[in-house]
């Protein structure tokens, strides 16, 4: 080395010496402290939403001279929430995967119209008419998914186009007419009830399943090295939800339609429960659901982990389409006719339900439980304000303000957490 001698050369020990070990090596689950209680932040969010729902219910209950939480009104409220709720479950999966679907309102109109037209104009039976409605939903969902995933057109654009186009299709097809539902059994889907005794039986099954999974999970915690839960915690985890289930069924069963005749769980509510359970299972306990969260949370990491983004996005739009079909059938059956302007603005209710329920529009975050709570909050506001004879324009202003406030609170909470 023929280095010149006059240059300033500073030798130093290897770089290793001045790097201190990071102090933040042992991290903990994000928690929030309330008094002496440590609650995981995600859990806190769920409790906050539940609390907000209870407050809304109590306020309306006393503001309406205790009509709001009467069995009759509660049963109606749940039935009203069912259409938005079913759509919210599908929308949740779409949003978690980092997509959006603006077309579901129009799709509900078209799918419901299709089912009504089949039975009304072509004399199809019950099952084929219902199948037609759902098939329309699935096919259109598949189209949206293909355009988004394979042709790289943003979902916002594809479904905004769908919002306009599918409404146009049903207006043209039905010639603007309302088609009454005549086929036997169709209206029952929207208007009838599950017999009270069946409701109690289901409550029994639900409580047993709840107890079994909770105890099993408690035992598993020990195996994951988390320390088994205390018996008291396990007991509370079973007893509190069990009481909610029993109270719910009791409320539904004590609605007296005619003297001595009790209603039971409305069929739309029963369908919503089934869809929500299936949705929760799909998102939490299947590879499909887990991949949706990964795709929405970090598409690059998901792709490099061998997940096919395209197939999953296509599938999630198909599911959304199928659930739009289900929602369309409930709505058509409840109203008793297929109307070309059915379902207008339902997409916004579904998106709002997800967002109020803590779903991030950026993708990767949200739960079915939250989306259902969001749908219940939306439906409760509608129902409560209508009972109080609040002008429709005021209702819109209130709902808009609550949507923005809910997200504002959530963001503030996240910054602190």
């Amino acid at each position, binding site marked *: *080395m*023929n*280095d*010149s001698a*006059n*240059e*300033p*050369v*500073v*030798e*130093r020990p*290897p*770089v*290793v010496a*001045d*790097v*201190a*070990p*990071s102090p*933040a*090596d*042992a*991290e*903990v*689950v*994000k928690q929030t402290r309330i008094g002496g209680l440590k609650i995981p932040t995600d859990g806190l969010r769920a409790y906050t939403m539940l609390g907000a729902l209870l407050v809304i219910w109590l306020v309306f209950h006393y503001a309406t001279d205790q009509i709001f939480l009467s069995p009759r009104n509660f049963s109606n409220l749940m039935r009203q929430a069912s259409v938005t709720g079913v759509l919210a479950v599908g929308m949740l999966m779409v949003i978690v995967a980092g997509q959006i679907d603006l077309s579901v309102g129009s799709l509900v109109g078209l799918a419901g119209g299709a089912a009504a037209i089949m039975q009304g104009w072509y004399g199809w039976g019950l099952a084929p008419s219902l199948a037609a409605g759902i098939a329309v939903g699935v096919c259109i969902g598949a189209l949206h998914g293909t355009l988004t995933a394979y042709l790289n057109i943003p979902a916002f654009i594809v479904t905004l186009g769908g919002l306009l186009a599918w409404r146009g299709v049903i207006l043209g097809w039905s010639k603007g007419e309302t088609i009454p539902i005549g086929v036997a059994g169709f209206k029952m889907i929207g208007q009838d009830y599950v017999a009270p005794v069946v409701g109690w039986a289901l409550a029994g099954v639900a409580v047993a399943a709840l107890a079994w999974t909770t105890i099993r999970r408690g035992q*598993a915690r020990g*195996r*994951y*090295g*988390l320390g088994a839960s205390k018996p008291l915690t396990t007991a509370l985890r079973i007893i509190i939800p069990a009481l909610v289930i029993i109270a719910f069924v009791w409320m539904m069963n004590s609605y007296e339609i005619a003297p001595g005749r009790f209603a039971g769980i409305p069929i739309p509510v029963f369908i919503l429960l089934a869809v929500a359970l299936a949705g929760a299972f799909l998102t939490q*306990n*299947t*590879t*499909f659901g*887990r*991949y949706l*969260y*990964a795709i929405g*949370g*970090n598409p*690059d*990491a*998901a*792709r*490099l*982990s*061998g*997940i*096919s983004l395209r197939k999953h996005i296509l599938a999630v739009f198909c599911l959304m389409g199928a659930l739009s079909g289900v929602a369309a059938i409930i709505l058509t059956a409840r109203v008793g006719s297929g109307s070309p302007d059915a379902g207008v603005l339902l997409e916004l209710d579904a998106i709002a339900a997800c967002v109020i329920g803590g779903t991030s529009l950026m993708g*990767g*975050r949200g739960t079915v439980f939250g989306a259902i709570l969001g749908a219940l909050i939306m439906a409760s506001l509608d129902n409560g304000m209508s009972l109080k004879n609040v002008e429709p324009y005021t209702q819109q202003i209130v709902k808009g303000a609550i949507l923005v406030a809910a997200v504002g609170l959530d963001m503030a909470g996240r910054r602190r957490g």
Partner: protein
Amino acid sequence: MTINDRAPFLEMRDITKSFPGVRALDGVSFELRRGEVHALVGENGAGKSTLMKILGGVYPHGTYGGEIVIEGVEQKFTGVRDAEATGIAVIFQELSLVKEMTVGENIFLGREPRRFGVVRWDELYRRATELLEGLRLRVDPRTPVRTLGIGQQQLVEIAKALSQDARILVLDEPTAALTGAEVETLFRILEDLRTRGVGMIYISHKLEEVFRIADRITVLRDGRTVGTNATKEWTEGTVIARMVGREVGDIFPTVEHERGEVAFEVRNVSVEDPNVAGKRLVDNVSFKVRRGEVLGIAGLMGAGRSDLLMAVFGAHAGRTSGEILIEGRRVAIKSPRDAIHYGLGFVTEDRKRFGLVLDQTILNNMTLAGLKKLSGRFVTDTDAEASAGAHAMKELRVKANSVFTVAGTLSGGNQQKVVLAKWLLTNPRVLFLDEPTRGIDVGAKQEIYAQINRLASEGLAIVLVSSELPEVLGLSDRVLVLHEGKLTGEFTRAEATPESVMACATGHTRRAA
């Protein structure tokens, strides 16, 4: 003609800058005269970019130690705008042009000539034309930037800097994306600027260019100045010796790996740049890795190391050609899914961008790639998953409360271990590691090194890419060197010295027997 007074125009005195856990700059002094091209060279992570970010106001006064003096007056920049107003223009590798706007709009962005708040477009384009003519650039200022090649965009950046009367121009790897002809144009412009008295700081890994254009060369290493001298006093050899001249500490347990049969081979892999037509990011590279062998790939930033791995893994956006053989069998890998299917694993660089879903738990991240193998094809088996996760967490010593801790809350070292676990849970036969220890503390680094040696001893074939030369030399059984996409050297563990590897990384070619 040449305004080249000997008094320093800019002085940076005793600059110190620390990041949590790392001292990036440790008493660096640097000076620049008018009309001088002063080259700043050093390995990745030596502190060049940090120093320039301090000069450019990215790290404002108060966040670093030492002082910046221009024409004898101490400067305390509060931000980028402040530094720009003083006449400092920094052109970073990542260009900061708005692609949808025209050349003229970009040049005057935020400083458009106005009358009563209304932009005077004629005036703007007249001045832009003047500027471009001054640089002898034949570009219509009304063309949108997106239609220009990267090279011309770079020159537009320079025009933008000059429109702000820059007296100090910092160029960070300006030729990385340029063709030969564009490099000539750039150098001609730099010569022009030299006669106009503009002081230029030129950062480059390409020593040949540095020796052509620079008046003086300063070498940084590990956050310190290790040499400043006139270019004619240096040779490429002495510069390289200064760049690498550090002892390899004993943090690398020297382990001779028991090498088995060839596990993985690539033949004639080339990758085209998806953004620049005709440019090859990887050019005709072939190599083999045996079971139990650690193959290191060295090279400087932009040499195409990550592009090579991404392409082989089926994840590169650019057009890829070449053959891949796994245990002697030719395979077609079109997506990461195929790659995983054939037993490849890839601990990617930039764990936050490519490796982790930060909102999700450690467990969900660990099982992301191997979920279907671990836990059933459709319905997941939480028990099987959690026990595999808990086992991996113990084995790799991930420090966290439980497998249900959210990955985003972990320290860098623990996040890196989670990414490693993700790939180990796919049971790979070949593992790619791209910058596996970047930005993590020394304790965690050593643990990762120990894991690499353990995995090799268990018969895994490992390909290790790292910008830290000691790491590559300390862990690898064989070292390949890439320079501008081409293989320029191959060394056995015994042959590889920091100097010989760095020589190949800066463009010299060597072939092992």
